[in-house]
């Protein structure tokens, strides 16, 4: 895990331009994201907020390259994600994006260590290097002593920490998180948020997080508020001021 030197201020990692995403249900065309443009700097911590159906998760999926836009471009680093082939996208994701899901989505038949090792199997690392890397990721999330435990033997918070270890195992620049505290109690949720802050501050991970929770969003440096697929507000905040800002954004979305 590289706690790499910070990127020059203002270096853009994600550039989204005129993004449109439509779904066709029967004969009806649903526009989920409508002509959205956005950029995210390297090292930023962005919270995507908005009511259900506003397009937050769709935007996250598009940024992470697991969905395709109807039109518009998405540039992550120097790669135009929206134009890459399926196979190239898979390869790109394995090296550049870490995923954190609301329901952790660990493989139940694998131990914590094996779950974290899973994305490393796609790399050219040998077994010893994979082991070292997975152990390091687990120690970052504070679960070095639970490596041999299966997901069913862990609490929800611990499962989510294993999922975070899996997300950072390949040392990607970008972490995308979809309601990472949505299934946790407040204490466990707090621990996860602290961990994410640390990953952002100490390990310079750029984080894009979808959340409904103003408290979770308050950890972000920037709040992007979507409504009906359109960017409503894009607020940059100094840390400490974010709580009130998030609450305000949340209130405005209800």
């Amino acid at each position, binding site marked *: 895990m590289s706690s790499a030197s910070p990127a020059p201020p203002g270096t853009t990692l994600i550039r989204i331009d005129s993004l449109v995403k439509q779904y066709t249900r029967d004969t009806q065309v649903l526009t989920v994201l409508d002509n959205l443009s956005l950029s995210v700097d390297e090292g930023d911590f962005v919270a995507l907020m908005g009511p259900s159906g506003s397009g937050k998760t769709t935007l996250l*999926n598009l940024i*992470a390259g*697991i*969905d395709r836009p109807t039109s518009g471009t998405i540039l992550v680093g120097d790669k135009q994600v929206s134009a890459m082939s*399926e*196979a190239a996208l*898979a*390869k*790109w*994701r*394995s*090296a550049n994006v870490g*995923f954190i*899901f609301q*329901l952790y*989505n660990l*493989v*139940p*038949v*694998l131990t914590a260590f*094996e779950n974290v090792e*899973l*994305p490393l*199997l*796609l790399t050219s690392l040998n077994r010893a290097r994979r082991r070292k890397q997975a152990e390091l990721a687990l120690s970052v999330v504070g679960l070095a002593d639970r490596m041999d435990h299966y997901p069913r033997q862990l609490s929800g918070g611990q499962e989510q920490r294993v999922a975070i270890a*899996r997300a950072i195992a390949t040392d990607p620049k970008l972490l995308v998180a979809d309601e990472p505290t949505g299934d946790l109690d407040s204490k466990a949720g707090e621990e996860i948020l602290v961990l994410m802050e640390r990953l952002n501050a100490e390990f310079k991970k750029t984080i894009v997080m979808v959340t409904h929770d103003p408290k979770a969003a308050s950890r972000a440096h920037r709040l992007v508020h979507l409504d009906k697929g359109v960017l409503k507000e894009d607020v940059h905040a100094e840390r400490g001021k974010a709580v009130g800002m998030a609450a305000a954004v949340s209130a405005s979305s209800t």
Partner: protein
Amino acid sequence: MLKFLPLVLKNAFRKKTRTLLTVGSIVLPLLVICLLGTFLRALDRPDPGATRGMFRLVTRHKVSLANFLPHAYLDKVRQLPGVVAATELDWFGGKYGDGGVKTIFSRFAVEPEAFFQVFDDAAILAGSKTDWYADRAGCIVGDNLAAKLGLKVGDKVVLRGDIWPVTLELNVRAIYQIPDGSGASLHFNRKYLEEASPRFGSTLGMIWTKAKDARAATSLIDTIDRMFENSSYPTKTETEKAFQMSFMSLVGNVKMLVTSIGIIIIFVILLIAANTMAMAARERVTEIAVMRTLGFSKGAILEMILLESVLVAVLGGLLGVAVFMVIEPTIKRGLMTTPLGTFAAGFSLYPGILLFAFLVTVGIGLVAGVVPAVRSSQRSIVDGLREVA
């Protein structure tokens, strides 16, 4: 792909009961396939006598085995060039013991000396030929039959006749064994039957001839049948193996029947395995979507599911073949004491059959895994992730 093997193995045994039941559902039909294949191979085995330099021919009435031939035919056959020896074998029928299924075996009236000239590859395990030659009421018993009925030299065997309405009290004078191990018949002196039922004397059921060599055997088939073709009792002469096969043809096209059963069994295993794999893949829709999110390609997912399917099938295949290797001698021993003994003698662990059975399971694993593997790998990641919600 080797890196993913531990994951594939863990997935294969994720639901242990289901996997073991699937393996079991492969093992049992596979045993039947091995058995049917071995049976077919046994039917196809080379002429049992010819492989040991024994060129034996069987002559019977052209119409059917139930029709008798004049006894005078035997001497005429013996006079033909190329004939080393000839004996009659007359089906006695009758009942032994309570006449139940377990007491059914072949009983033939023969000329003792001529019998051993034709079947000179038979070995005496207990008693002696001369004791039999000397005792008109004597009989010899095949080793399998002796084991089945618990007979030993000196025992009495009482046969109650039906075709020939006489009761024969026979003394066991020898236990014999023939090289292919199919000794499950009883043979007694025809003169004893002739005395008890004089009508029998002028007829015979079959003539078994030992030819000098293969060439003589081939020409004798024509010569014998031509000799009697314009008589009131035309004959049909064939090799020992062809004669045995003609018994099987009485129940129709046995090979086709057996092959059809085998194909049906293969199809049934395929459906079971396909259903299991479909269920296994369906349960893991979200998990597969997560793996693809992590960067696993469609191809890698496809390969892993196929490998899992093949692994389960191969496990069933290996177990099935192993179990068959263990039980085959027992099955053979069991059949040897039945009227199917002649065919059971050809039973063996044929590597070709075992390999075929094993490859069938590998094929089943592949075919069963194709649809779930393709579906899982082609499903959109977003749809897969939504399944969780």
